[in-house]
């Protein structure tokens, strides 16, 4: 399963062909081409811009989530972390002097890192299942958000101009928010692929017991990965704020499903050990493209959740079948 992430000896084009991300990319292109043939207005300048804006914060969270899923855990608390971070960011900007944007990013990161730390410590030190822990923190953080935000609603007029600009302006034809995602992916991908920290995560996901035995500091790595996921979720709170020009008590509700779906669809193996931040971004793109393609194809938007669910199930089934086949092949070869 790790050919895609290690692939050193094979020729570059073969590596590319066998990469887990390739089929997703092909599907993505196929959906875009197909939809735009059926409805030429689908690829309008404005349409693409909206799509990229909508995908930005999901993609950023999916980049962080990748680090957690490759070590065979999951982080469901990202949606509520986004919500809380976006509001705390607003409060920080209002009450602290100086450059508002800086305070926003700092506050959002702080919230994210704190939630990530709690998740990581509970999972790593107490050996609890990440699913249950993060389901718990999801609701605790959501509740805190509810108490802090209550019925208050932040509008674009209450935000500093620099933040609103961030959500509007473009650079080289791409919205600023998408540049943030690209930079994040460019930072995250080498960390996952080449650093010791990253390789340890893959090892832990492939075989937790073996990882422990070869001396990987499992708990430190686990806490680190959860903090990365939290950091990304917190920062997407800032993106969310810029994208929607505000926040309220419902911010980030249910987003965790899209994030996990983006990772799984983008080739991050749900049982750990393989996948890349780049794939997660492609997965997020595919999800959003499908969601926006529905109205363009005159399918009701109510199908969106059902399609996300079906895609998750399809993606993990395909993975499973591939694993079973590879297993059988290996067994046959070893018999020979």
């Amino acid at each position, binding site marked *: 399963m790790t050919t895609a992430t290690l692939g050193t000896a094979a020729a570059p084009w073969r590596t590319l062909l066998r990469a887990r991300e390739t089929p997703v990319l092909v599907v993505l292109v196929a959906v875009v081409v197909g939809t735009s043939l059926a409805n030429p207005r689908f690829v309008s300048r404005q349409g693409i811009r909206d799509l990229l804006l909508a995908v930005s914060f999901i993609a950023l969270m999916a980049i962080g989530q990748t680090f957690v899923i490759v070590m*065979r*855990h*999951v982080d469901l608390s990202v949606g509520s972390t986004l919500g809380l971070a976006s509001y705390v960011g607003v409060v920080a900007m209002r009450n602290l002097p100086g450059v508002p944007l800086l305070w926003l990013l700092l506050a959002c990161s702080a919230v994210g890192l704190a939630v990530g730390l709690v998740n990581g410590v*509970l999972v790593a030190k*107490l*050996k*609890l*299942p*990440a*699913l*249950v*822990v993060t*389901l*718990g*923190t*999801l*609701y*605790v953080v*959501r*509740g*805190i*958000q*509810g*108490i802090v935000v*209550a019925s208050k609603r932040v509008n674009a007029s209450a935000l500093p101009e620099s933040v609103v600009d961030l959500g509007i302006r473009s650079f080289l034809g791409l919205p600023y928010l998408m540049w943030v995602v690209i930079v994040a992916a460019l930072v995250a991908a080498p960390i996952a692929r080449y650093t010791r920290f990253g390789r340890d995560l893959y090892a832990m996901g492939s075989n*937790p*017991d073996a990882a422990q035995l070869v001396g990987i500091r499992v708990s430190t790595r686990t806490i680190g990965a959860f903090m990365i996921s939290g950091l990304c979720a917190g920062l997407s709170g800032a993106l969310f704020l810029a994208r929607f020009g505000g926040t309220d*008590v419902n911010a980030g509700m*249910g987003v965790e*499903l899209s994030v*996990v*779906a983006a990772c*799984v669809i983008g080739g991050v193996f*749900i*049982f750990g050990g393989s996948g890349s931040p780049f794939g997660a971004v492609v997965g997020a793109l595919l999800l959003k493209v499908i969601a926006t393609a529905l109205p363009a194809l005159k399918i*009701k938007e*109510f*199908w*969106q*959740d*059902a*399609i*996300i*669910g*079906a895609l*998750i*199930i399809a993606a*993990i*089934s395909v993975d*499973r079948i591939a*694993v*079973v086949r590879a*297993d059988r092949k290996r067994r046959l070869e070893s018999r020979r």
Partner: protein
Amino acid sequence: MTGSVAVPRPSAVTPLAAWRRLGSWDVLLFVLVVCMFVFGDAVTEDVRTSATAFNTLRNVTEIMLIALAMTMLIISGEIDLSVGSAVGLSSCVVGKAFESGLPMWQCAVLGVVSGTMGGALNGFLVTRVGLQSLAVTIGTLALFRGLGSVLLGNNTVSQFPQGWVSFGYSEKLFGFLPKTWLIVVPAILLFTVLLRYAKTGHAVYAIGLNNEAARYSGLQVRRIKFALFVVTGAMAGLGGVLFTLRTASASPTAVRGLELSVIAAVLFGGVSIFGGKGGLFGVASAVLFLGLSLRILVLAGVKPNVLTVVTGGLLLVSVVGPAVAARLRAHPLFSRSAGRAERESHSAQTMLPDSERL
């Protein structure tokens, strides 16, 4: 996974031994519920009334029904995150069927059937395709929710027949027992007998303690797990019907986060997330505890947002508590049973209890 010491212990499920081992926590929880009810007046007014009892019981109807099945599922080492969406889907099916003019009893049957089919899908994907229940049910969580909104769109169906609605909402027996509990009470008894005294129940514990050993000793592990998923789905479907009657409306957005309450109650009731341990008395007490504490907070005028924190916190406490306790027991200061505690915490290493490793 680990599987070094986990041999099915038949003694673990005979009533006497189960009583001795789990009794303290079960009984403590139940006593706590009773105390909360009796002395709740100290916190806020109007706790010790038949109205409180009635409201509490009515509000936990679906949670109780689903928790019964979920208990068996988690003991067997699996989990179902899709129950909340399954309740929503069932509610939407009832609404859609009623909208298209079917008689109410047929709508109710269709609701239960939809849940059962959803459970069968989960079971098929887990036991036949060989996927992990966590991943599968995250997928079906989105799928069922989506199907619900496909069925009803932005509509909300109401105007259900008065007789059915008052059965779900207001009718009571002995002044405190909701009439819907004519279904819930037999279900509790049935599941208790099934889990404690029937062969099936013993098999469920055996599977949860060691999946492989259970399989090699001749248990139809896949068939039993499939059945558990189907039953869980059916209970969610039934819960959806009762929820629809109780709220007198069906809409795709009505049910959110029910799976949290169910899983929180099951784990708080003493069921181990790693499988193989727990009982229904504790779970039923935990459901009542959850319902009553939320009710008291509502009576005390606490905002709904705080209630979310309480439920989430309960879930965290119920998984963190035993882990911390095991750690403490393993500590030299408290080391009378250090060996056992160490083994227990050792068997808690991967994300899911019995990952049939890929």
